[in-house]
């Protein structure tokens, strides 16, 4: 089924795009990540111009997170207070990210910056999650089977002034910690063209120490608003949001997200984290390989 994309200026196979949306939607419902880290590179690989891919992917992530947020709301899986703080940080972060993006683009190094960010972020997070998931799935074989340690937040978080109670997350910490986390994730969202869930989820778990049952819902809540801000920013500045492309992606991803969140309720959370860790590590390794190996295209063209 050929569909012509009016902003991307090319015709694509509509069914392929819907399937791509469904794949990322399932990931989104399953792990609470937006799936942008898969959509954007795959769209670019398919021939969609990078800016259009990033802009339209952020629109798609909005849709996937809406259905995810709804699904998690039904089981009280969203901490709105925590979400609100991270959203405030996130919107500020998108502005910072947009400035950084423009700077790196003007010096022609945006691709390398994005790739290095991917390798560093995904590599660090992936190995952290992998280690944690393995120790919780197969406790240390030292003979003494220890009870899994109760997760606490990072010592730096306690050093911050001002403390709020976040009941659903089971935390009494400074709002500055989630706010700063929001800023960082927002900036990365704009820079990397991703929802930021794959950074947010582990950060909420291991840095803030939020209780696991609200992490996915709250991170989706933050992603929802930050990607809305990103879509608007793209629509106003780059004018690269392709609504036809976004609609096709949405069609797949909103259904995928529902399926994903159904599976998530039945599966073991440790196993889910192990799988997510594996996916994240594979992508990081692929990107690392891509940095060191001569690329297929030595020359790239940008309009002036």
């Amino acid at each position, binding site marked *: 089924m050929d569909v012509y994309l009016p902003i991307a200026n090319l015709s694509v196979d509509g069914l392929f795009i819907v399937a791509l949306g469904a794949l990322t939607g399932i990931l989104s419902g399953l792990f609470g990540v937006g799936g942008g880290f898969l959509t954007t590179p795959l769209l670019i690989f398919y021939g969609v111009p990078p800016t259009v891919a990033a802009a339209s992917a952020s629109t798609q992530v909005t849709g996937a997170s809406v259905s995810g947020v*709804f699904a998690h709301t039904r089981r009280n899986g969203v901490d709105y207070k925590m979400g609100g703080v991270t959203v405030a940080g996130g919107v500020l972060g998108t502005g910072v990210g947009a400035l950084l993006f423009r700077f790196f683009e003007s010096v022609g190094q945006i691709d390398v910056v994005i790739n290095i960010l991917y390798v560093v972020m995904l590599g660090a997070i992936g190995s952290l999650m992998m280690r944690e998931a393995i120790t919780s799935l197969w406790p240390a074989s030292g003979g003494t089977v220890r009870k899994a340690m109760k997760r606490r937040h990072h010592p730096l978080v306690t050093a911050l002034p001002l403390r709020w109670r976040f009941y659903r997350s089971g935390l009494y910490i400074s709002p500055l910690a989630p706010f700063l986390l929001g800023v960082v994730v927002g900036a990365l969202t704009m820079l990397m063209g991703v929802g930021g869930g794959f950074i947010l989820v582990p950060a909420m778990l291991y840095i803030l120490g939020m209780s696991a049952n609200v992490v996915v819902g709250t991170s989706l809540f933050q992603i929802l608003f930050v990607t809305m801000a990103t879509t608007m920013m793209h629509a106003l500045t780059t004018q690269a949001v392709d609504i036809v492309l976004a609609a096709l992606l949405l069609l797949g991803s909103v259904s995928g997200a529902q399926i994903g969140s159904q599976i998530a309720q039945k599966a073991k959370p440790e196993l889910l984290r192990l799988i997510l860790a594996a996916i994240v590590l594979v992508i990081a390794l692929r990107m690392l390989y891509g940095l060191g190996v001569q690329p297929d295209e030595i020359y*790239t063209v940008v*309009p002036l």
Partner: protein
Amino acid sequence: MKRALFLLACLFALTAQSDPILVPDVSQDEVQVRQGFTGTELLLFGAILDPSGSRAAANYDIIVVLKGPAQPIRVREKEQIGGIWMNAESSDFRSAPSYFAVASSSPINEIVDDRTAAIYELGTRFIQLSPSGTIDPEEQARFTAGFVDLRERQSLYKEQIGGVSISEDVLYQARLSLPSNVTTGTYTAETFAVSNGRVIASEVAKVEVRKVGFERFVELFSQQQSFLYGLLAVALSIFMGWLAGRLFALI
């Protein structure tokens, strides 16, 4: 007087003989880009007439060149720096055609020399990209070659040797395909008649490639009402997400 008239007649006759008339046409003077557009094929055809009526001098070769609207571009070159492949040097070109196809009835290097080919841009090697800035010619050639190679693999630049067929020494035709990712704008189709290594006649026709209907509406909407367009995109995504949530809640 009689002699002068005779000379004049000879002049007319001679010029008439060395100046064949080229009557080119394109199968369509407008390409509409709309939903389901997967590229199209343009048929460039026409007749070459010798005013004297004889086909004695009919050993012409025909070259057609189809060019898309030119854009200023920057070409970046990746290099391995500290183990990482990253953009290093770059070169700017003021007018790179977004599409360039040339078809000829015989191999171009057999019918014209490089100088003539360069003058009329007969071949992807001879596209005039108007490089700007001060770069040494060797480096410029490297960038140009890299750029042309990239566009050739995107099937936006191409050379079709033998792509022009001539029948009865009078009619010629060439088919050139436009991929779906072509840039919209005014395309020029130039036809050259070549004889003995010289271009002896040329004609230009224009083809308009433009978006129509819904595609044009979306493009204009995104450019002229970008705030509303962004809101619409956000609203669409929220609505579809919400709808899916409701539908699946029923199951």
